[in-house]
């Protein structure tokens, strides 16, 4: 029995969830609503998250009725998402993990959506339509990984809807997509809009510029109402989404479709998907706004899956914990860096990403054969790749506070790398955080491969 707490803050929602083995104990959330006619800016969203996160953590713990000591791990959204809100959430998660001395587990946002959808609906191996303000993808689980079959070639569908809502000056409360959905129910006239499907990919930017241009003219001329425009927009973009989903289903011969992400709670989209599925003799798995929209429970649930997997890896000696880490009582038993190596929940360079662990058959023999793990065991070479990903991400989105934390992680990595066996010439200078930060450190280690360039 594992209880985990998850913190989600990749966009304008901050959510904290507590999950015990797939059972959601509490899942409070708070949404930042930008002023009407505007989108949410990273700075304001991050401020909002900082204002609400502690209240939400307390609320989550109270609602769940568990004591802090019962919590086994802290998981947080590592990405993808907006930099500033991600950082404010990550700092809280790291602090909690150190306070409670429990492992800290980074979770990929997209995988969390899918895993939560599978958990709630019980879908086994569905084709996934992931539609939200930042993502539009058709994903399928094949050959032990999640593969992106189709996606948007430019903007996400939620982004398209949100920006159109701004043109109509619709409120951002509770969310623009919901207001469009309600208004669309009154629409009667169908206005033809550009329809752009390229294979299993879609494109929305042309459609958006078209409707932004004509909407103002048509409304001024009294040719249509706001409701008609919303109705036509919804019908067109959702038809495109359902079509690419259908293509992916036909291609992968799948009999189940799961819809996740913020746009996924639109009832019209669910209705269209259900009809499509029925025509193909397939079934639709959908959830409501509690789990479709970004929430903490999905992060906690996925963290749980990863956590239990990590324990198995460690107990079988496939990987060892860093002993140096355990010397410091304040450090979590499994560091972020360890977890990043062990849980390959990051997208690899191509369009595929390595899945959340799914161990189907597992035996506890003394000899561990690699085939028992559906995930390939992390090869040593991954270690050398690690700092680059950290550093890249660091440059994009992390503040100096987190940068220091990451540098500290890199330091222990470097110490390992500096072992006489791994490098021809051990560095002469002692590496401290000061040398790390002022850059002398890099000069002292010219032999490191290009993969491990540090900050």
């Amino acid at each position: 029995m594992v209880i985990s707490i998850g913190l989600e803050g990749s966009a304008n929602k901050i959510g904290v969830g507590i999950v015990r083995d797939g059972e959601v104990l509490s899942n409070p959330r708070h949404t930042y609503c930008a002023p009407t006619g505007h989108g949410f800016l990273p700075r304001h969203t991050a401020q909002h998250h900082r204002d609400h996160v502690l209240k939400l953590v307390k609320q989550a713990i109270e609602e769940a009725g568990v004591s802090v000591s019962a919590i086994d791990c802290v998981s947080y959204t590592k990405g993808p998402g907006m930099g500033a809100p991600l950082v404010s959430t990550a700092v809280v998660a790291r602090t909690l993990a150190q306070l409670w001395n429990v492992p800290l587990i980074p979770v990929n946002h997209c995988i969390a959506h899918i895993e939560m959808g599978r958990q709630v609906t019980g879908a086994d191996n569905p084709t996934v339509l992931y539609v939200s303000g930042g993502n539009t993808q058709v994903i399928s689980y094949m050959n032990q990984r999640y593969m992106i079959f189709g996606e948007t070639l430019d903007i996400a569908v939620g982004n398209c809807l949100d920006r159109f809502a701004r043109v109509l000056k619709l409120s951002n409360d509770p969310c623009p997509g919901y207001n469009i959905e309600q208004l669309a129910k009154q629409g009667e006239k169908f206005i033809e809009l550009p329809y752009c499907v390229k294979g299993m990919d879609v494109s929305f930017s042309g459609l958006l510029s078209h409707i932004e241009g004509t909407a103002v003219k048509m409304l001024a001329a009294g040719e249509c109402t706001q409701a008609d425009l919303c109705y036509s927009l919804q019908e067109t973009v959702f038809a495109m989404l359902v079509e690419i989903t259908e293509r992916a289903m036909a291609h992968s011969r799948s009999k189940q479709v799961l819809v996740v992400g913020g746009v996924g709670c639109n009832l019209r989209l669910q209705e269209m998907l259900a009809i499509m599925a029925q025509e193909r003799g397939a079934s639709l798995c959908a959830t409501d706004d509690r789990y479709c929209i970004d929430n903490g429970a999905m992060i906690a649930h996925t963290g749980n899956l990863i956590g239990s997997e990590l324990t198995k890896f460690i107990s079988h000696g496939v990987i060892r914990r860093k002993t140096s880490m355990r010397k410091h009582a304040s450090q979590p038993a499994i560091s972020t860096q360890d977890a990043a190596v062990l849980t390959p929940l990051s997208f690899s360079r191509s369009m595929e990403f390595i899945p959340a662990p799914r161990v189907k058959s597992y035996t506890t023999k003394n000899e561990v054969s690699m085939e028992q793990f559906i995930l390939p065991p992390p090869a040593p070479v991954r270690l050398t790749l690690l700092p680059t990903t950290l550093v890249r991400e660091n440059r994009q989105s992390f503040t100096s506070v987190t940068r220091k934390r990451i540098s500290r992680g890199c330091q222990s990595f470097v110490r390992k790398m500096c072992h006489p066996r791994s490098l021809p010439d051990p560095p002469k200078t002692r590496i401290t955080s000061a040398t790390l930060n002022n850059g002398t450190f890099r000069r002292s280690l010219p032999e490191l491969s290009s993969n491990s360039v540090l900050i």
Partner: protein
Amino acid sequence: MTTLVSQGAEGRLFETTFLGRPCLMKERFKKSYRHPVLDEKLTNKRLSQECRMLSKCRSLGIRTPTVYYVNNKTNTIYMEYMKQTVVFKDFVDEHVAKGERRVLADLCFNVGYTIALLHNGDIVHGDLTSSNVLVMKRIDKYDCVLIDFGLSTNSSLVEDKGVDLYVLEKAFLSTHPNSQDLFDKILAGYCSAAHSQKVVMSKLSEIRLRGRKRSMVG
């Protein structure tokens, strides 16, 4: 006598006879999830486009099923039933499993060559996947047949040709993992025959960078 062969994304395929000849009937059935106006527009457009392209391809020297008859009231096409063919996707899966990559490499080169012929004739397929290519065995080698031209357009733009290859690349690599070498063969075949191969290739590498959150760090 009409029997259902399979259901694709676009329509249903039936095996039937036309004037006593065995044939394949492709019916674009009404998609009730779509708005009727939109559905009619799309279905009509794709039906006529498919017929036009199927016959135009033959004049370019690309093997496609012969169109016998088109009924635009019921949205059906009667075309040649190529029984001796295998879907490229299944063919790849089978041969990868057997470890016969040599045969596959030759075939992939051929597929790339065929796509080049298509693009030389200023046709963009629009939905190139390994499910939309059939493989036909000739005496000593394999030939490929292109099908499913519903999304195809007439275009001489480098952009459209680049997107066409990009769509294929994504569909191919996500369906057949660890097959970058095979896709490289397809590109090699393409470059061997395409008139504007240099421009298209540089466009392709530009398009690859376009998608959102390509790195997906997290």
